[in-house]
């Protein structure tokens, strides 16, 4: 069941013009530049620095609480990080050059890396140092600058948006969790695509560029890799592509054909939600201090535990759960690897709601810093909008548990339903889903314990 949102004339007109989307990207770029400048030369006090407050509180809140759950990869459509590289690649800022020509070495990304393993590694790398990055403006600025430099470099060497598709650490989880969103970009009628020989949505035309995300829209079946750049909407000569409003989580209803890299992404995100909830907002100050003391013996121990949890312990426990389910049920032809990857779909709603619950706590408590930072983004004593003196105020701290608990329970319910569905679609008995259900329940109880105890 779905409704073609982009068939509404006004929305169609907006999506076909380039100026609105470009303007939003330029605006995001301005914020990006401000975040970098603030990080490099502004106050080192994080709560008075635009780079920390607007990246890790405001932008993160928008992303994880609104954009990803409700609009999928909409952020990717206006993200400023790949923009300069793409402009250089296209030698055009807004309107496309004839034929959608690109000026880049155009190398193909190595086949072995055409997955999200590098994105997983990138995310782990940032997450490992997040106690420093999230609180140190200079570190944030250097990370953002690093992302942009890599994005620009990649654009000049490789084809299209290779950075976004295979390297961006943020894109990895946005793509995974966008499967939950009630928004999708798909073809209206696959038969139309089959008869369309030019495939301008992928090759480009005078009206625009071939899919920057290296996807053939005609074969798009889930949100994971589509960056909602709407380039295909502009280049399709058959008006056969649309943005649909659909049932939330529709991508997850097909529980077969998932990949190991995405499974690991789901496990990494769940593990990091636990670790962040314990270290960054937990009551054990020594953990936070250790996580910040990069280079010390304690930090290396923390790093070891962090990586072990992400790469071995949690995946190992999940593997045990899937294996136990296979033992309980009658044997099926599916390999353990495929079962593991397919059952990992439960981690999408589980992990997303874990991140929503975690983010609610620090966003609601710290969001009020945004008002003073708007007036004094660099902490230099400015007062542009008269709000510099506004004091920190936590928002509805008493209501936090009442928000976190339902969110986590929604995620658990969806995960349990998916576990059952996966068992059924693989020809297993429903009892096969029980160990995975226990895993999901234990994870939720663990998070509830952290937030409520």
């Amino acid at each position, binding site marked *: 069941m779905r409704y073609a949102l982009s068939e509404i004339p006004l929305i169609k007109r907006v999506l076909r013009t380039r100026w609105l989307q470009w303007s939003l990207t*330029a605006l995001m770029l301005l914020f990006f530049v401000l975040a970098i400048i603030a990080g490099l030369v502004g106050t080192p006090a994080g709560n*008075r620095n635009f780079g920390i407050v607007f990246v890790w509180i405001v932008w993160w809140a928008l992303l994880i609480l609104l954009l990803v759950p409700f609009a999928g990869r909409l952020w990717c459509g206006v993200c400023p990080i790949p923009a300069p590289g793409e402009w250089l690649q296209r030698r*055009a*800022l807004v309107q496309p050059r004839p034929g959608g020509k690109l000026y880049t070495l155009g190398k193909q990304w190595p086949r072995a890396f055409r997955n999200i393993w590098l994105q997983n590694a990138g995310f782990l790398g940032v997450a490992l140092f997040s106690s420093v990055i999230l609180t140190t403006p200079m570190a944030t600025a250097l990370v953002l600058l690093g992302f942009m430099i890599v994005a620009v470099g990649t654009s000049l060497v490789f084809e299209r948006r290779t950075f976004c598709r295979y390297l961006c650490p943020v894109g990895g989880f946005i793509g995974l969790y966008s499967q939950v969103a009630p928004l999708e970009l798909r073809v209206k009628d696959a038969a139309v695509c089959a008869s369309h020989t030019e495939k301008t949505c992928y090759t480009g035309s005078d009206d625009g560029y071939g899919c920057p995300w290296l996807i053939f829209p005609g074969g798009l079946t889930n949100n994971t890799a589509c960056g909602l750049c709407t380039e295909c909407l502009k280049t399709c000569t058959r008006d056969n592509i649309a943005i649909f409003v659909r049932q939330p989580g529709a991508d997850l209803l097909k529980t077969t054909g998932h990949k190991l890299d995405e499974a690991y992404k789901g496990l990494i995100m769940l593990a990091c939600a636990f670790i962040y909830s314990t270290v960054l907002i937990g009551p054990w100050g020594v953990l936070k201090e250790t996580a910040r003391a990069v280079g010390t013996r304690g930090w290396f121990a923390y790093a070891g535990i962090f990586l072990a949890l992400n790469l071995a312990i949690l995946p190992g426990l999940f593997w045990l759960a899937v294996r136990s389910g296979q033992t309980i049920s009658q044997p099926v032809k599916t390999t353990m690897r495929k079962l593991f990857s397919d059952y990992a779909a439960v981690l999408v709603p589980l992990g997303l709601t874990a991140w929503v619950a975690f983010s609610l706590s620090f966003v609601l408590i710290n969001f009020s810093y945004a008002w003073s930072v708007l007036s004094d983004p660099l902490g230099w004593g400015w007062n542009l909008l008269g709000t510099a003196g506004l004091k920190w105020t936590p928002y509805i701290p008493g209501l936090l548990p009442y928000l976190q608990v339902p969110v986590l329970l929604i995620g658990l319910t969806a995960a349990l339903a998916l576990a059952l569905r996966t068992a059924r679609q693989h020809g297993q008995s429903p009892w096969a889903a029980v160990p995975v259900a226990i895993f999901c329940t234990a994870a939720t109880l663990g998070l509830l314990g952290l937030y409520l105890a």
Partner: protein
Amino acid sequence: MARGRSRGKGELFALGVVLLVLVAFPAGIFGYQAWRVASAGVKTVDIVARAPEQGGFSPDRLTLRVGETVRLRLSSPDVVHGLTIPGLGVNVEEIYPGKVVEVDVTPTQSGRYAFACTRWCSVDHWRMRGVIEVIGASPQVTATTEPPLFQQLGVDLDAMRHATQITPSARPSTGAGAALNAKLPQDLTDPAKRRTLTPADAFHSLRVDPANAALSDDDVWSLVAWAWFKDVEPAAFARAETLYARDCAACHGPDGKGGGPAGVNLPGLAKMDPAMPKGPANFTDAGTMLAASDVLLQGKLLRGGMGTGMPEFGSLYTDQELWAMIAYLRAFLFGK
């Protein structure tokens, strides 16, 4: 052709926007700041205070001019700090993380002024110091400073001393000493001379004085206490109490017994002689304190403890504060 011209105009406009974002916007930020500084009428210096192991004060060296008012903008990204610049009369009690404190300074005399953190911010808190160099013509001629008394007298601060065996059986009282209305010898009435004596020496000289033959040993100790305290101004004593709480209590304990949390791992005198007790000095230990002259204590305070963990306070205390502090340390043994 028309489409091409339209595309060209559109691209030019977009390029203008990009240049605005990437060039004009950053230039505007720095330009606005430069304009603010120029029109403020007062020079502003941003000082960031971090725990010493993360860098301490940044910058930790400033150069100011005599007569020029400078606004110090203090902030901290980690824990609560404080700032004192004793020579310039600056005392900021709290620099809370994430908040900015502004204080104006107008030096009137050239010279070097130490500044230090006044809130116990880490185990290396005492290292959190800086220097302000004030240059330019001074309206007054700077007087040459004499070396401190312990240097003038050649007192060896690190020589191991035996504790006195004779100690009071009850806590000596300055009030009781004053009430005895006894005549004190000049050695004890002249502060300059008294500071070179140990309380134990004073006890011996008073004990053998025939005028005090009728007094008990505890009475004589009370006379010693009175001798040490009779010239201490209440305001100076109160100042010393504040300084002790701020600078000493973390290691020596609020009760002076040496059990403060910050002093747990400090070597103390055991660094020089393993037979000596570890950790900060216990000011309630009558044997050692009554065998230490004020001059010796002055030296320890001014110079610090040579690897014992005791910081130097010579750059932070005035002479008056120093002697008042020593009187305060005596108060752990001598009651009112």
